[in-house]
């Protein structure tokens, strides 16, 4: 691992991959972020972030079989590595500590 901290987008992607499990490839990852993260993402941006995460050893990918509905293109499935899981937990702990005791965040969401 070459970096200590994740960007918020990388963290969202890692969480989406974890949530999707064996079905984590580009389209559902982007959809997961859009629905749960309430932000519009470009699939190209998702791939760019996934490639950075893979280069840093936080995810690994495998190529599936080509399918006709995708124009004969294969899916690329992603899986979070132990290092990736550790990075997510570290981010969770850091964020939790930061959230704790913030007066503006008490009493529910805005």
């Amino acid at each position, binding site marked *: 691992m070459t970096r200590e901290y994740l960007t918020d987008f990388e963290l969202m992607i890692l969480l989406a991959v974890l949530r999707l499990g064996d079905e984590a490839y580009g389209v559902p990852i982007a959809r997961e972020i859009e629905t749960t993260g309430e932000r519009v993402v470009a699939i190209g941006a998702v*791939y*760019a972030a996934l490639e950075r995460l893979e280069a840093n050893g936080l995810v690994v990918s495998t190529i599936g079989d080509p399918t006709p509905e995708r124009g004969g293109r294969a899916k690329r499935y992603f899986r979070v590595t132990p290092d990736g899981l550790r990075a997510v937990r570290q981010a969770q702990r850091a964020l939790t500590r930061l959230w704790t005791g913030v007066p503006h965040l008490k009493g529910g969401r805005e």
Partner: protein
Amino acid sequence: MTRQAPPRLAIAILERFLPGNDPLIGDLIEAGRARSQAWFWAQVVAALIVHAFNAAAFPKRLTIESALVGTAMLGVLAFHAVVAARLLEEVLLVSAWMPRTSEASAPHWGAVAAFGFLAAIAIGRGIAVIHGSHRIRSALAVSTAATTAAFLNLCLFVPPDALTSRFVPADAGTHIAASMLFISGLFLGMTRWPARMGRRSTTAALCIVAAGLLPPAAAQVPADARFEVASIRRNTDTSLQGTGLSAPQPGGRYVAMGVTLQRLISDAYGGIETAGGPPWASRDRFNVIARGAAGGTPPDIQNMLRTLLAERFGLRVHTEARETDVFLLQPARPDRRTGPGLRATDDACAAAAARYVPSAAPSTAPPCGDFRMSANALVARGMTLGSLAGRLSGRVGRPVIDDANMPGAFDIELRWTSDSGLASIPRDSAGIGELTPDGVTLFTALQEQLGLRLVPSRAPVDVMVIDNAAPPTPD
């Protein structure tokens, strides 16, 4: 929501610019089934942009280093490009080292070309040392920048009348050959040389280039042609018009009052037209009083004036033959009979005219070899038609070439009463108040009084191009 097949062009673009990204393309096709083509195109553009940024910033730990190195490389390349372009322009295209003139001799040309070649090798070696594995790209950048600069210089700054056609200079072949030689030297300098000879050859080439970059003005100045005493002072009289008054004087003297540098150059180089140079060369005025050896002839004074201009103004010039609008001075009648105002001078007057040095006696009739010219008249004794053509040039505003083929000296009396067709005349010139728009023009007077005519034409005319000029050093 529009359901359409994914645009083929967009997919082709992705395949071309993001090769090996089949899963991404497949994802876009899959997601695009429920989206519009606009969405698909937006995704493609985003993918290309993100990929480009990702490639530039990846890996992260090298981001800052890459940015710094890239910026430094760009700066160094830009520096090289500017230096090379300047060298190409100065050394090979416009400087006195590459004379595009009738004075240019083959040995001189060869020496200049050899110098340019060595300079290019030195630049190439510098690029190879600094840029290492990027040498080819650096060379291409330098070559392209140099060529572009030379081309822009040609298109933007060379006067149109210096070109035989819109973009092709009269000596384009020379330019192309010089450029090819320069670029060849550049690439030769960047090839991988044996380590032992690399440093020595680079040093030798740099020494040769440094020697060649020494100011060439000294080489242009004959050592023996120098005024004994010379004074050059600014003349700040703002009422002066024209180019000033100047003439060689008896006793090897040269006196000029309120003259521009262009006028001084014209005096030093036989009345030739000038071109180029800083704006003040045609604007600022000077008083010049200089004295050479007693008995100095006008040609001697000309040579001494050249030396003076080189030493005090840092003047460097070269001549170019430029195709331009001219008047040809020709006999007006088929039988070549001259008019009453043009008579062959007698032998004694012609001999006196040949050794004449002007003296200050403006109100008297001209002696043999001299002339009086006002806004509406020219009276001369012992004047050649070549000299007459030179005097007429100033009046009609374009070069006049003697095409009459009438050797010998003449006594001339020419008077006109119209300012039609004349170039601007200083408002304090004698006789200017007698000119009217409807009188006899200079062109008509030439035909009626001298039996000569001015025929519009185009011809190559030598022009003195100012390569360098600076305000004069103090006395």
